């Protein structure tokens, strides 16, 4: 029996602001299995991003346990965490976070630098992922020459280029118009069908309906965790 992809026990993140302790994440325990497509919802300030940053190994919990692929992240040093971010996790951000004045191809290849791959292999893999995102004719474009939807697809290609176990997306459609948002959710569904685990933060209920499981945060706690009843399927194309 393999361990679940992600397991948290009583996960807590405190911030001290002006002498007052703020429990941004206040005791979250949940399990996410391989291949799940999870939507995280909740009001602004409810702790969604803080939670995502911890499970993405970008931030360290104040207390509680985080098991990633069966490994307790408390036992890992900064190099090992960097390696997990590189190999097992792909990030998609609301603001895309592409390197300016850098071609789509080079942007997508960045994680492969840190994976220690050679130049040719980096280019080949990056190109393949961009082609899979329908950007085969935009390889040399810099972010400034791409639309928002295209930029987010470059970012998804970058997140996928090391073939990670899961994709973490914090409001990936927050900066996009409705149609483009639906396109992105379609891409996520397709990737999920191919087996990748997806955790997507959104505050739009209809976007959340593309997922198969919906978790709702309030004041740093999970107040609802259930399967999506009438799941939407993206229209092909």
């Amino acid at each position, binding site marked *: 029996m393999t361990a679940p992809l992600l397991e948290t026990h009583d996960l807590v993140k405190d911030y001290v602001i002006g002498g007052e302790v703020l429990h941004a994440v206040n005791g979250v325990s949940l399990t996410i299995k391989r291949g799940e497509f999870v939507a995280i919802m909740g009001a602004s300030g409810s702790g969604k991003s803080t939670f995502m940053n911890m499970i993405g190994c970008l931030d360290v919990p104040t207390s509680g346990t985080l098991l990633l692929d069966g490994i307790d992240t408390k036992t890992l040093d900064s190099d090992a965490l*960097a390696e997990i*971010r*590189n190999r097992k996790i792909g990030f998609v951000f609301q603001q895309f*976070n592409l390197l300016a004045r850098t071609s789509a191809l080079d942007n997508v290849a960045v994680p492969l*630098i*840190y994976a220690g791959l050679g130049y040719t292999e980096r280019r080949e893999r990056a190109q393949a992922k961009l082609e899979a995102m329908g950007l085969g004719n935009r390889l040399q474009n810099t972010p400034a020459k791409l639309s928002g939807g295209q930029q987010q697809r470059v970012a998804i290609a970058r997140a996928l280029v090391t073939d990670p176990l899961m994709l973490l997306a914090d409001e990936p459609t927050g900066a996009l118009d409705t149609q483009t948002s639906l396109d992105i959710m379609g891409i996520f569904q397709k990737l999920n069908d191919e087996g990748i685990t997806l955790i997507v933060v959104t505050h739009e209920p209809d976007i959340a309906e593309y997922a198969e499981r919906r978790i709702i945060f309030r004041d740093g706690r999970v107040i609802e965790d259930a399967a999506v009843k009438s799941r939407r399927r993206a229209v092909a194309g």
Partner: protein
Amino acid sequence: MSKLLNSIAGWGVNIAIAMTALRTNLMRSILTTLGVMIGVFAVILAVAVGNGAQVSVTQQIATLGSNMAIVVPQPDSGSGPPRSTDRGRLTERDGRAILRQVSGVSAVAPQIRSSVQLVTPGRSATTQATGATPEYGIVSNVTASEGRFLTDGDVGAAARVVVIGQTVADKLFADANPVGETVRINRVPFKVIGLLESKGSNLGNDNDDQIVVPITTLRQRLQTTAMQGPDDVTLLFVGFEDEDSLFTGQQEIKRMLRDRYRVPKGRISPFTVRTTTEIAETTGQVTQIFQAVLVAIASISLLVGGIGIMNIMLVSVTERTREIGLRMALGAKRSDIRNQFLVEAAVLCVIGGAIGLTLAVLAAAIFQQVADFPAPVGLDTAIMSVAFSAVIGIIFGGYPAIRASRLSPIEALRSE
């Protein structure tokens, strides 16, 4: 093996990232490089000029002749100025006594020095005249490249003959052959019998700007400053057979002169006896201090350049905090981030160092041409300075780089 290849490839990537970042802020990169460039330029030029001074001094001393002692009738003042009141006398007779009594002496060349004016039709020159005997040629390696040098006959007859240096010849006769021509020295007509072999110039001192006449002639016809006796000389050059006899001979001469002039015990001798070896040593020390001061001043500018690098790297880290966070999110280890910024600083420094080196080599060459002063830039200086600038980059880029690598991924990513 593959790990090694990977790490080399990793550095290649870092260089690529660094070049991109530097190109993005081209103007800033150029200005930063300029600091290092000027620093390296100054250091290399200082070393070159210092080396040149040493070479020049060595050459200058070599023109004096080797294994020689110089005797002057002045108390030994060390490096300070002599006190003229204590001036003693020195005579040709003293010279003959030295030749007779001091062991290992091969020749003694008595000299009187005097400033003179030379005139040919339509031209004139002022120079230093040395009244000498043929021994002067032997002891200090002076020969005639055209015509002939002084003979005992010239001295015995107090002949009005002169051997002139190349610079004097150029001034008075331009391109014409001066040998056999007549020149008026302090209004007295002299016949030019020879041209001194050129000894070039060192440290702005032209060795060819002089003339040599028989000591007897100078005494009778050209002397401007009065001597106390008919036999008095300005100085003696004493040539020795080898370095060992020079060393013991110096002490013997000092003792002998004290005896001859009955200098009481405890009184400072009114004579200075210096060997060419000593002169070489003291001047060598002086030029070394000169070089050290030059290099120290130049190093300060390199230090300032290094601080400039640090400043710019700190700005760069601050500006690119978000990029650092992103790279960490994508899997960059702390060491990757550190190396990225280190390489960036090192690239700035090495480029600055290389340009500074090139300019210094050019400047040294121009200096050599214009000032007629050797300023050799050795391969060792070149390698050392470029390596030095890379080290500057690593030291001054190191702090910002380590600071960047210590950022927490999420805090870096959240920064604006």
